[in-house]
């Protein structure tokens, strides 16, 4: 069977898998950004407890594998009374993993904002929260967007692991089709190409656009 015949026959399943993959990606990315922001700000806190919580979270999730985290959340967390449905467990695990890496980007971005900006915000008597939200974070965002582009590709790739807890994403469909047809080159090749298209022609251009958009907003373009 040629590659095109193969795609002609199996495209509905590949497409539905791709839909799930995109959904997992969007949810994991959105939640991951929120967690990154929270953990990054907490790590900058001078309160030892708040800081300690953030450091512990970051070290645990950066120090272990995404797959271990996924299995732990899906198979072990129910023993603690927290049962997540597999679809939810999937993107939550990826988001928690992403958040640990993103937190460091947030922290670095904030620390890279010049000290004079804090001082100028204080000189017009802004409250600490307003200083952070209105003055520092917008500038930190632009500092950290380029590395976020790479992290987003990692999020997309990370979604493939949810197939291992039977979320019916692209990876899962590919595996299933391979199991019944043994057309491994065709099915895995098709899946590789779809992931590549998602990364190269959707995620990366979107992040580039976001960078340009932010730069324009900050009057730097």
């Amino acid at each position, binding site marked *: 069977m040629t590659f095109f015949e193969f795609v002609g026959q199996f495209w509905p399943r590949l497409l539905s898998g791709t839909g799930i993959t995109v959904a997992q990606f969007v949810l994991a990315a959105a939640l991951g950004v929120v967690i990154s922001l929270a953990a990054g700000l907490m790590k900058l806190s001078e309160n030892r407890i708040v800081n300690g919580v953030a450091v512990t979270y970051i070290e645990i999730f950066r120090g272990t594998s995404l797959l271990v985290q996924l299995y732990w959340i899906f198979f072990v967390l129910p023993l603690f009374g927290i049962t997540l449905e597999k679809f939810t467990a999937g993107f939550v695990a990826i988001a928690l993993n992403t958040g640990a890496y993103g937190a460091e980007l947030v922290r670095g971005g904030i620390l890279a904002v010049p000290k004079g*900006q804090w001082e100028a915000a204080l*000189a*017009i008597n*802004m409250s600490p929260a*307003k200083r952070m939200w209105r003055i520092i974070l917008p*500038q930190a965002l632009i500092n950290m967007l380029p590395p976020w582009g790479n992290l987003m590709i990692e999020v997309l790739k990370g979604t493939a692991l949810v197939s291992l807890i039977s979320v019916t994403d692209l990876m899962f469909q590919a595996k299933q089709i391979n199991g019944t047809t043994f057309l491994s080159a065709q099915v895995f090749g098709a899946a590789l190409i779809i992931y590549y298209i998602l990364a190269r022609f959707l995620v990366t251009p979107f992040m580039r656009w976001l960078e340009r958009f932010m730069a324009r907003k*900050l*009057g*730097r373009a």
Partner: protein
Amino acid sequence: MEDISGYPLEISGADAPMVSFRKVRKVYGPLVVLDDLDLDVAAGEMVSIIGPSGSGKTTVLRMLMTLEQIDGGVIYVDGSPLTHMAKNDKLVPASQRHLRERRADIGMCFQHFNLFPHMTALENCMEGPVQVLGISRKEARERSEELLELVGMIEKKDQHPSRLSGGQQQRVAIARALAMRPKVMLFDEVTSALDPEVIGEVTNVIRKLVSEHNLTMLMVTHQMGFARDISDRVCFFYDGKIEEQGLPAELFGNPQKARTQQFLSAVKEAV
């Protein structure tokens, strides 16, 4: 903890100074930056601070803006303590809340302008009035446009700082500080980071403020001619202390202390 029971809870009276440093100390580890500084600035007075680098001049302004904590003494602004607050008829170190309340009296312009890069000139000026003072956007816009007019930047009001020259940025920064209606304005080496040909546009704005507005001002500067022209008083700092102070004509024309003479002649040679 240092004993501050001897300091008054308030300074009142017709001739009470707008700003008063009482035995203010600042140390960085073993280094004494300010050594029991006493300095009063009257309402409406323009005081220039000159001196070699490392003499503590900038620290004076930064403490008044509460960017630095003090290690001893008390600073008063408009009669009441800034660095401390009265609690049960005794002075205790200021809380964050007290600082926020009292900071409203003070505005500051920085050497490197520190404009917010993600906001236009107008938005920079409106930010404080809208976000901190809670003024309506319309009113804040009017006030900010007036001030940008005053500093000659109204035509560039919709530009971001990255599109403005240093002199233009500094003028916007002055408007931003004025928009908060401070009683005391601080100028921290506002011309030091500028190219020589644009220094004039900033000094002219400050001149205008001095002649047309009754603001209390403290200015740290390296521009002796400018300080001489517009100040009511000049303080020469050396090694964390006021070595000599007086009317500009006296201090520049007939300095009494050897260190003042040395400094002034060294500056003159450099020009």
